[in-house]
């Protein structure tokens, strides 16, 4: 059986057999430099990619600079209030026009020759202009502006000039989950200052799979589970939960919380002092949305994978995790916390505290995730074992959260794009 499963079918990387309920991924997908290079053109140059949250550029002139799909970009709120995403590269000779990770500016000046661009992208200053002939027009040298759209505060960009889908079309069923996040505040959500910038010596897709995998939780995160039990975390008040495929590579898990949620789900681990405030918030959600949707917003944990490289995990805190490939064997991870702008200060502290307990490079769980994906990458060095298995739950109509449906949805879209089967 083992030998049979490891025998190559053909040259396919993703090998799915609906009759045998088998779903395998050839580990070349994680290790091959040619695959990694092809991903940049076939996936990252074609999809909508997450840039940031609009709360990161709150004022006129606010900007952040970061890499998206390996390209340096600037997300800027212009003096006209509009959010734009620019190529962070001078149109003259290419230097970064913005080297600060964030700030506020009316204009960006390239340090090389002092070409100056407004925060709306227009070239407004060229020193010693008499070196150019009459056909030189500043209007031709504005910053390259990428096509960007915002959905419920989440700003995305696409580098594909032939992109056929609007952002909501691209997000498909994942829009429901972004709604469930953004509905958590009447005045809007905000990214909390202080990003967790780290990485792993492993292929980026391993972290995508890991982030939407609940199966590993009790095995790999024993120490977190016992820590939460020591705080008096209570078993979920209802059982169940399910995984879903949301279309176009997106997937999600939704499950009853095993611990409190700072938004509006109190358990004793938060202490009696904040209980009335949290319960009042919960009641307010019932007023605003009705009991059923309020329960889904406030009393349910979720992890949503937005293809290709965005994870939003909404549990004891909300994290936005952007996972970027750096060749086949390394990734960069950017994690930030998202919270209601109008959050009670005491509850904000609880949120941050519990965020750190689980998440981030020094939490009680994420370091083990980092180590395990690096361990997988090392394991792949033994090429005798050719495939990884992602078939859990193929035998069920409604897969559970411990199944691998969201990961399969990811891989199916990955496969379509890499094989040029997906129409644009």
């Amino acid at each position, binding site marked *: 059986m083992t030998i049979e499963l490891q025998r190559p079918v053909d040259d396919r990387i993703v090998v799915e057999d609906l009759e045998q309920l088998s779903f395998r991924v050839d580990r070349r997908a994680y290790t091959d430099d040619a695959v990694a290079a092809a991903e940049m053109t076939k996936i990252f140059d074609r999809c909508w990619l997450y840039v940031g949250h609009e709360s990161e550029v709150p004022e006129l002139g606010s900007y952040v600079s970061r890499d998206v799909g390996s390209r340096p970009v600037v997300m800027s709120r212009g003096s006209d209030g509009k959010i734009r995403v620019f190529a962070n590269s001078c149109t003259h000779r290419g230097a970064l026009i913005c080297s600060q990770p964030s700030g506020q500016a009316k204009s960006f000046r390239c340090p090389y020759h002092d070409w100056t661009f407004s925060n709306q992208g227009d070239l407004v200053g060229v020193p010693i202009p008499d070196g150019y002939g009459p056909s030189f027009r500043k209007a031709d040298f504005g910053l390259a502006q990428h096509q960007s759209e915002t959905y419920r505060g989440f700003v995305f960009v696409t580098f594909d000039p032939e992109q056929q889908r609007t952002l909501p079309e691209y997000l498909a069923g994942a829009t429901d989950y972004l709604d469930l996040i953004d509905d958590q505040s009447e005045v809007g959500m905000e990214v909390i200052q202080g990003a967790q910038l780290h990485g792993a010596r492993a292929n980026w897709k391993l972290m995508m799979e890991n982030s939407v995998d609940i199966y590993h939780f009790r095995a790999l995160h024993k120490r977190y589970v016992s820590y939460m039990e020591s705080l008096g975390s209570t078993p979920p008040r209802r059982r169940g939960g399910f995984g879903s495929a949301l279309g176009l590579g997106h997937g999600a898990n939704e499950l009853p919380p095993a611990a409190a949620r700072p938004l509006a789900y109190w358990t004793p681990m938060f202490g009696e002092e904040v209980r009335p405030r949290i319960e009042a918030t919960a009641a307010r959600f019932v007023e605003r949305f009705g009991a059923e949707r309020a329960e889904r917003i406030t009393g349910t944990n979720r992890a949503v994978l937005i293809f290709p490289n965005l994870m939003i995990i909404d549990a004891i805190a909300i994290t936005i995790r952007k996972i970027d490939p750096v060749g086949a064997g390394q990734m960069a991870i950017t994690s930030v916390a998202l919270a209601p702008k109008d959050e009670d200060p005491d509850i904000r502290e609880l949120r941050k505290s519990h965020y750190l307990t689980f998440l981030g490079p020094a939490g009680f769980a994420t370091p083990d995730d980092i180590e395990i994906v*690096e361990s997988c990458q090392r394991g792949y060095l033994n090429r005798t074992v050719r495939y990884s298995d992602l078939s859990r739950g193929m035998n069920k109509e409604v897969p559970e959260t411990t199944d691998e449906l969201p990961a399969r949805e990811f891989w199916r879209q990955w496969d379509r794009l890499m094989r040029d089967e997906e129409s644009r």
Partner: protein
Amino acid sequence: MTTELTIDVRLWDQVSQFLFREARLLDEWRLLEWYDEMLTEDIRYAVPATDVRGEVAGALGLIEDDAARLRQRIEQLLNDEVWCENPRSRTNRMLSNVEILTDRGTHLDVAANLIVHRFGHGRSDAYVGKCRFELVADGNSFRIRQRVVVLDHETLYEHGKLSIIL
């Protein structure tokens, strides 16, 4: 030119010896001894995020431990429940530039530079940071009430994680 020596050399030496002992206990994984003998009951151990320079009010950090959570961190590390620290990493702490910033009567504000070399699971990493200690007197020695390590790294991209106590 003469400079008036304003530091209390004996106090500086005591502080340095105390901090060197702390480094040694941590390197030797004598974490419970460290916790029991060198920290106050209201210890705060924090590592701010690398994208904000130092401690910024309201910001999320990487570590923000009170005594209870630090105790949990230690127990997990010692119980070999931490997959990424099992087998335990080998560390070597280099503490230098020890400076008593202020004697506040109730406590000393002490600064030091820190490099922690960590080896484990086939990796070698160095964590570079600036420490700020709040030391309170305890008999002939001290206890640490506050221990903040501000990492100088722009990101932990190379390291991936921070699974040891810095």
